[in-house]
């Protein structure tokens, strides 16, 4: 079985952020593998260990993002492709277009993506990619099994968990509730240096400037307003309940 995992380098959510004049300033030294992607890699590794498969990772990003590709290889992925880009303001449509161009001539059983990236939280790339490649797909996987030639996905829905069989070739986007991604061992780190990595450009994929034009744009960033302190009600339960109901109706307008 051949798995491709789309991964992204994102800022460490624990790293402090600053917003200055609408611009986001972040410590670019603290970049990590998107947690949802890490779960996708982990799940592919488990499935490929069980069913004798192969795991390839593909990453779009600047030169620095190579370290994140190496992390996935250190976890156990067999091979990597780094699609080097200079521009970091791409939206999900562009990312999915680049990936579509990449996958056009590839053979695979399944493509896994994180259900979203921790930096933008858009959650669109996986779905767009499945559409463009005309693949059956499902989202927000919290569990996977390989059964009778298909992957049986346990999907977390609003009302409960759904079991969805995704035939091959297909695409699944993964939640980080699915597993605990392995920590690279020293052996894995050592081996990751010797694993094959293809470095290509968007031009190599036959994409032009026009293809890479974004459709959505982030105009500016704003600080989240500080949460105001709550109100405490004290007194007889009857009276307090009456007052709370009144305020919910008149002030909050939720009744």
């Amino acid at each position, binding site marked *: 079985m051949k798995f491709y995992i789309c991964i992204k380098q994102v800022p460490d959510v624990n790293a402090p952020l600053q917003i200055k004049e609408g611009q986001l300033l972040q410590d670019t030294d603290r970049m990590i593998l998107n947690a949802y992607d890490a779960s996708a890699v982990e799940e592919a590794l488990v499935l490929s260990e069980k069913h004798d498969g192969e795991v390839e990772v593909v990453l779009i990003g600047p030169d620095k993002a190579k*370290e994140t590709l*190496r992390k996935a290889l250190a976890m156990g992925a067999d091979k990597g492709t780094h699609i080097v880009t200079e521009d970091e303001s791409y939206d999900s449509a562009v990312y999915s277009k680049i990936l579509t161009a990449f996958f056009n001539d590839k053979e695979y059983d399944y493509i896994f993506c994180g259900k979203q990236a921790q930096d933008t939280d858009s959650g669109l790339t996986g779905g767009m990619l499945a559409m463009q490649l005309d693949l059956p797909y499902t989202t927000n996987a919290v569990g996977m099994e390989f059964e009778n030639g298909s992957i049986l996905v346990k999907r977390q829905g609003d009302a409960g968990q759904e079991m969805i069989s995704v035939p091959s070739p297909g695409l699944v986007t993964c939640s980080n509730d699915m597993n605990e991604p392995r*920590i690279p061992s*020293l052996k894995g*780190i*050592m081996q990751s*240096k010797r694993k094959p990595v293809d470095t290509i450009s968007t031009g190599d994929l036959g994409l032009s400037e026009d293809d890479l034009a974004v459709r959505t744009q982030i105009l500016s960033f704003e600080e989240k307003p500080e949460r105001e302190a709550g109100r405490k009600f004290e007194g007889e339960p009857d009276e307090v309940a009456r007052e709370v109901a009144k305020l919910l109706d008149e002030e909050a307008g939720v009744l």
Partner: protein
Amino acid sequence: MNTDQKESARQLSFDYSQDQQMIRDAAREFAERHVAPDVIERDMSKKFPHDLVKLLAEQGLMGIYHSEEYGGGGFDTVSFCLVIEEIARWDASLALTIASHTSLGSGHIALAGTHQQKMKYLTPLAQGEKLAGWCLTEPGSGSDASGMTSNAVRDGDHWILNGTKTFITQGSVGDTFVVLAKTDPDKGAKGISAFIVEREWDGVQPGEPMHKLGMNSSDTTELVFENVKVPAENLLGEENKGFIDTMKVLDGGRIGIGALSVGIARGALEESMKYSQERKQFGKPIGSFQAIEHKLVDMAVRIDASRMMVHRAAWLRDQGKPFTKEASMAKLMASELSVEAANEAIQIHGGYGYTKEYHVERFLRDAKLNTIGEGTSEIQNVIIARELRKEFGY
């Protein structure tokens, strides 16, 4: 910068390599996921964490800088320091287990062993399948290690080993011991040899775990060797030259204790930063008071200096350059800092810091070992003074 300037700037770099960063990140993730959660419980129960050691072995963290040929990671001493710091940040006992196992017991075999000895003994140690103990100190000889009374007498194709060793890390959980003993008692330090001894052999008697101030989940015992028959091929290094190797092993061990000390001090700072921002008195976080700020700054400055000294000593070792003085200086600086930083961390935490609800009281109890083990601070002074005299030609 012109080309020459760029070239000379390249000679001194404060960047960690990508390998080193990956190892540090992996160790940090490991420590946060597996080490931090039950550390207070382990300190109180004083049980040796066999399960954690097994996980460390799976990650390849029990033989970081030993050669890949003998089951090690094949990484450098700087990487080793980064791992020790990350583990010690939460659990100094566990960091001590790794450091002593790697640099003392396994380290002595890696330094002086023959290919056969390394294949047989170093490989399972570096892979973490077995644990090493290093037996130098005796009840009557500590800082003056050459005053030992343990002895080995040649008897055909064996040596007969007798003696009592104490303060042996991994004394009761260890599988493979390197034991220093007099083989020519009249010659002092020049009559000492090293032997590889298996725990299973007749006459090897580990004592009960000692009750200590700290480092509670690290195993420390006495070890008695009574007429232990050691095969001649288990002589480690040259006969009567064991003490020279011992000094080299201790030089390496000091780097580990230095890194461990930096880890504890960093823990003290991180816990104190967090607490002093959360704890409010007189209507504001205590971290906004200058009395507290100065303590935090003092810790941060000295942690930075100590880490650089430790990593430089490690780097020198990796370059194959002499590092006795630098390792000693780094160990002295970092170990004294670890005690003082932990002490100040308790002060910042006030009454809460004195309880086992918080990490900092453990940091202080654990840190005190650092100014004693692998040579006391006083002995570091002796070593540094001797190196200084050499340097100045006296």
